[in-house]
């Protein structure tokens, strides 16, 4: 009995410390912070700025297991992809931490976040796992967000703080992938360049003197290699990584 009580006391002290730091950092940075239990999919604490910005007001004892409140903060149309990506993030972070308990990672996702009555704006939502000395990994995450400048194609990104490559969510494969060192064939690069100049498939086929079916085949190959699901995203990624 005593051992469990000590553990509970320590967990409570840890949570209190995270609440203290969230509150102070929220104030000095002017940023909305919240603590999110990844396992239970619910908020356990929101700073005043978070509540004010997301128009969410709950008494502390109402936080636990309020999944409907959680849904209310993210736009309903973003919720499905959020659930899908979130489950992948959980798997991936578990895997990362099992190999390296001192890994330093955080995620940046772009969602529409409530900013008023029936009003939602795009925001970069950062989530960072908090390791508990008592409980081990990963259930608690610190969340903060800022307005997103653009919707962005790199919509879900996992960052490694100590220099490893970033990972991006591929909706095509429903998993996180590394996007650098992509090997596009010369003809695939040419096709992508022509698309970025506004040419359509028949025009591309004519210029390259190949059949239109072949142009479509190479387009699919480009999507697969760049882990994208549409041509606009392919052009963006291509230019970002200086493939074009």
């Amino acid at each position, binding site marked *: 009995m005593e051992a469990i009580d000590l553990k509970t006391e320590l967990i409570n002290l840890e949570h209190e410390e995270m609440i*203290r730091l969230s509150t102070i950092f929220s104030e*000095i940075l002017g*940023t909305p912070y919240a603590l999110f239990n990844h396992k239970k999919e619910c908020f356990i604490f929101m700073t005043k700025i978070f509540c004010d910005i997301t128009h969410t007001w709950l008494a502390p004892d109402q936080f636990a297991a309020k999944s409907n409140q959680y849904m209310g903060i993210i736009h309903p149309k973003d919720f499905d992809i959020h659930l899908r990506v979130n489950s992948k993030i959980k798997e991936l972070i578990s895997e990362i931490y099992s190999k390296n308990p001192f890994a*330093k*990672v955080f995620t940046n996702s772009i969602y529409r976040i409530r900013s008023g009555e029936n009003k939602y704006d795009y925001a970069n939502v950062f989530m960072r796992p908090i390791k508990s000395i008592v409980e081990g990994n990963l259930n608690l995450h610190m969340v*903060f967000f*800022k307005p997103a400048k653009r919707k962005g194609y790199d919509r879900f990104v996992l960052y490694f703080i100590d220099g490893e490559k970033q990972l991006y969510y591929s909706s095509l494969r429903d998993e996180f992938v590394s996007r650098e060192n992509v090997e596009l064939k010369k003809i695939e690069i040419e096709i992508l360049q022509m698309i970025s100049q506004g040419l359509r498939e028949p025009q591309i086929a004519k210029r390259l003197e190949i059949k239109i079916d072949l142009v479509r085949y190479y387009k699919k190959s480009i999507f697969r290699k760049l882990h994208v699901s549409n041509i606009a995203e392919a052009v963006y990624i291509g230019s970002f990584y200086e493939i074009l």
Partner: protein
Amino acid sequence: MEEAKNPIIFLDKHLSFVQEPDYNWYNIRESNIISEAIGLNVTHLLVDHYKQSIFLCSYNPEISNILGGVNGNRKIDDSIITDKIPSEFRELFLNQIQIINDSIRNRILGDDKYYYFTFSIPMLIGDSAIRKITFKAVPYQFTNLKPDATPWLTYYLIVPTSENEPEHLILHSIKNGNKLHFVLRNINQSTDPFALLSDSDLDIIKFTSDGDNEEEISSKMNISVSHLKTKKYSLMLRLKCTSAAQAISILRSNKII
């Protein structure tokens, strides 16, 4: 990377550690604040009083520029910051850091750790241009989670000063929303150079400098005249001055009024 040499100003040399702090905590907390710096494009300094080292994490281009192009995450010598402070302000800067360290170590708000400090100081951009920079200090990490734990890491957020931001050292208490203002009595005074004033103390001086008499001030502050007299007396004692005019002069020299 250059080896850091003798970081001095930011360290609290009066702390005594019974044993080495748990650096597993350090790794976890450090990654937390680095992700903030990257995500929010801010610059911070993390002072480790046990290992006597300071780490700069700089993702704000304006601050990186002021600090001579230093960016990313690295151990530094405090001269990277102090060399950018005009010489006439360095002693003030030193005093303010010392006051912050003393306040945290002496548990200025008792067991309440929900507080932070702010102050602003001019810094040089290049050789001659000046920009006011605000430092926000947080008692970040203690050696354990108990109320009487030893301070171990102090966090400083470094941001360009926004308009109308006060320059003098202020302690912000988050739980009750109060502010305590550190007023420099005499920069040449080596011991006890600061007085601590509350918002209501400042109000008394401000109303006095506006020409209000005691009845008018007590009415504005919703207190009795005798209560006002007591507060005024205590205030003069703390500022070590003998007249309202002298008190006003001290506050003006601190750029508080």
